[in-house]
């Protein structure tokens, strides 16, 4: 199978990578670029562990072809913390013990970040429906929802 050359931007950095035409963006990130923070839980778009942003929009990277990232901007968990430290959501997930095993956590954080960028003041129902595509089997979701609520209120408070 002829590999395809893809020029993309990941977390603000230009990247060149060769992909098979049927590789998913998830495969491309993990195997092609070594960015294993994005996880595979199902490869069918049902668990959200592979959540990334594509040109700013939240998607399951398992349901995007690697070739489709050509010319686009990809955002992954590795780009959530900036040089100054953890993102507020990351900090709140830690403070609220919103993770147990932690394998769903990158997907939840990427998804929750996309929510707060679109809607800085979501109510509990909005948070729960926005995150309905992210499965967590450990926490029962309670502490995740609280961490997102707390992050939203902290982000809303002027520094």
């Amino acid at each position, binding site marked *: *199978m*002829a590999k*395809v050359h893809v020029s993309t931007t990941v977390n603000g950095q230009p990247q060149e990578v060769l992909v*098979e*035409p*049927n590789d*998913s963006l998830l495969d491309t990130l993990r195997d092609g670029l070594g960015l294993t923070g994005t996880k595979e839980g199902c*490869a*069918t*778009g*049902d668990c*959200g562990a592979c*959540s990334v942003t*594509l040109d700013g*929009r*939240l*998607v*399951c990277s*398992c*349901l*995007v*072809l690697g*070739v*489709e990232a050509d010319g686009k901007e990809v955002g992954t968990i590795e780009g959530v913390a900036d040089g100054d430290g953890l993102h507020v959501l990351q900090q709140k997930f830690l403070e609220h013990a919103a993770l147990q095993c932690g394998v769903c956590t990158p997907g939840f954080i990427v*998804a929750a970040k*996309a*929510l707060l960028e679109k809607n800085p003041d979501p109510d509990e129902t909005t948070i729960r*429906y*926005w*995150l*309905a*595509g*992210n499965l967590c089997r450990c926490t029962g979701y309670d502490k995740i929802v609280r961490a997102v609520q707390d992050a939203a209120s902290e982000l809303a408070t002027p520094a």
Partner: protein
Amino acid sequence: MGDYAYAAPSTVDSTVELLSNTAQSGGRAQVLAGGTDVLVQMRSVDREPRLLVDVKQLAETNKLSIGDEEIYIGAAIASAVLNENAELKGKLPGLIESADLIGSTQIQGRCTIGGNLCNSSPAGDTIPALIANSAVCHIVGADGERNVPVEDFLTGVGTNCMAPHEFLLGLRIPTPKGRTGDAYLRFIPRTEMDIAVAGAGVRLTLDENGTCTEARVGIGAVAPTALVVPDAAAALIGSNVDEAALNAAADACSAAASPITDKRGTVEYRTKVVGVLCKRAGAIARDRAVVA
């Protein structure tokens, strides 16, 4: 066994040419819009390699226009984009809600009404809502363009009327006028993430007295394809869309259903619930029409 390949043509003509040439050479091409069905199928039920023809680069499949007579929704526009369009949502709340029900937030970022229709699942959420809204498929192929009503587009479980050289450009929907409202409801066991066990879409128009003058009802997941249910519409037309009329429409939907028992529901369950959904969607459409 051949190899997978990918192409993202930039014009409709080159897309048609690619599809035609592949078909003529005995190859297999598959049109790719959001990919949320195609990629799943590629990994499980149908692993045969093929040429993936991405139609998201085309201006025509990304066209969105809201005219006095017709609303045009390009086949490759992601549901999330449609949902963020307040004007469109105001005109066709039921249809946009049906698109919003496909999968998760993540799926919404990719999936399209066009793809949902072309996948032609009996349970596709947008299809009953498209039928209720009298949507027409705008198809292009080697023989030029053609327009096919959604209910005629579908030919069976996972099949539709398009030839291998054709693809869907967009959907034409009559712009709602006067006191018109639409609604779509589906039933799933959870609150999100499931395939519809049954679904019902209703669009209706009321006169100034609140009498229903026009109605169309579509149902899904209760037959090999989504269906238009004229008897349900007839039960609503001429009524005030009161409980008796809604119950009659519900009975008509149940009567029109010919479901199967599978992992998502039983014959008895689907038959009953499709009526319940018609009744509830009808009431929502009525309430929307009143304030339209």
